């Protein structure tokens, strides 16, 4: 088997979360690569939508930001900031959204706002951007994160983007997290909204996964994550990220 990096495995795993004909609200980095990979393999009819308002986006050069001129030049339509959120996310036209964050808990609540107290933060993070509405409105949300204890605490300091929560009046919510893809494992949310380990990446021990996770995991009999195939690695290395910006 060919050698591969953790990032390449994450990209290949994320690509498998995308189905043909999906409309995906794409972020920079692993999500963009995963969409590029899925589109060239099993999802040729995938529609990529960036929060800058570019609809059905294609690109030759990997974008550095979600608003790069390459994305505008490679799109089929460009809508306003208000419209991309209202006509696409709020209206239920997005199948898959990708999110990351500084902290993620077992229910998929994501913190990208502050570490510590909101009014006197230890670390001020960038904030929601469009993350809260992606979590709220995308049909399936896939969370991408390094697997570290500080990233996966028992509870988040601040819920920027909602996970599986139940409140008395939430009929306006339709979204829910689907899976967490880390550099050690893939977790999937069960019907009660709890993240369980579905598979552990090759070469990673179960106790390493538990030690890096802030809540107790059930690790008996979990599968090994499928390795990236030659064809996937070839597309990632030679077409999508030849300069190894995200997958080196």
């Amino acid at each position, binding site marked *: 088997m060919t050698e591969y990096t953790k990032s390449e495995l994450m990209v290949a795993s994320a690509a498998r979360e995308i189905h043909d004909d999906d409309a995906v609200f794409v972020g920079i980095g692993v999500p963009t690569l995963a969409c590029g990979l899925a589109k060239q393999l099993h999802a040729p009819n995938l529609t990529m939508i960036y929060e800058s*308002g570019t609809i059905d986006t294609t690109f030759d050069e990997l974008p550095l930001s979600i608003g790069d001129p390459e994305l505008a030049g490679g799109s089929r339509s*460009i809508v306003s900031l208000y419209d991309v959120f209202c006509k696409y996310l709020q209206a239920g036209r997005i199948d898959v959204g990708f999110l990351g964050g500084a902290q993620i808990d077992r229910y998929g609540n994501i913190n990208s*706002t502050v570490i510590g107290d909101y009014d006197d933060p230890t670390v*001020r993070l960038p904030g*929601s951007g*469009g993350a809260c509405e992606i979590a709220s409105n995308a049909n399936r949300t896939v969370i991408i994160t390094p697997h570290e204890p500080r990233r996966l605490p028992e509870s988040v300091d601040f819920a*920027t983007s*909602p996970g599986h929560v139940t409140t008395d009046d939430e009929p306006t919510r339709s979204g829910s997290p689907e899976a967490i893809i880390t550099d050690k494992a893939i977790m999937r949310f069960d019907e009660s909204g709890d993240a369980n380990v579905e598979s552990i990446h090759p070469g990673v021990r179960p106790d390493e996964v538990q030690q890096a996770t802030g809540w107790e995991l059930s690790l008996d009999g979990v599968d090994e994550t499928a390795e990236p195939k030659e064809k996937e690695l070839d597309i990632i290395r030679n077409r999508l990220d030849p300069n190894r910006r995200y997958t080196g």
Partner: protein
Amino acid sequence: MRTAISKTIHDGDCLYLSGFTHLIPFAAGHEIIRQGFEDLTLARATPDLVYDRMIAAGCVKKVLFSWAGNPGVGSLHAFRRAVEDGVPNEIRTEEYTHSATAARLRAGAHGLPFLPVRTFEGSTLPEHNDTIRKIDNPYGDDRIYVVPPLEPDVSVVRAQRADREGNAHLWGITGEIPDAAYAADRVVLAVEELVDESVIASDPNRTRIPGHLVDYVVEEPYGAHPSYAQGYYNRDNEAYQAWENASATHERLLEWLDEWVYAVDDHTEYLEKLGVGRLQSLEPEATYTAPANVGAYTGGTTHD
């Protein structure tokens, strides 16, 4: 730009310098710093480097935002120093999500008392921002979050080209630029090039900012650098990456401001300092849209 800024902006005003990644009015921000305005409320979905500089310069008392980072790079260090440590002064924040910031501007542009948004449910954000409220749906049994209009005192907007009346052709990522113009009390428009009115009249569908909204029109090529103008110059990604280091400490950032803002007289001097080679390296290859037949009608597209 010097006159436009000094005539429209006052200390304590709420400003919206618009442009979502694209066409960010950096030159206007630098001019605001040079003129030494204070106690400004700065609103932008993404404060970006332009507000980071204005915060470090001490112009700002409050920031309304939804994502405060350096896109593709990391943190906005001056913003973080102000929020975390009160350097150079304490700033207040009013925090939203992108859809809520966009909805606030749209409500302002449409003259509405509020707009509903499908977000925030299960998020901690509404606990820290009492302008985010929840109301009964008058047509159903559920409840929905709403946000109030944002009506900036001054919006600075950029576009690729405009006529002398301020009718502006805008293409590429339009973001919240037209809404910012419609929502504001006073509007400063800066463009890459001033063109004859016949150019604008040839394609009114491309006019996203009509001149009747505009108080000042400024021809200011490269005024969005280091962001970009679709078809005119690319995003200067090196400058965004270099900001990580240049803004790492308050002292270093003040040195940067001394060199690039205070020591230059205006945007033309900034460009001279940047150098022709740098600007040429950002120039994209030209590609043109296919012409559309709009028909020849009397009194339509030509003016004598």
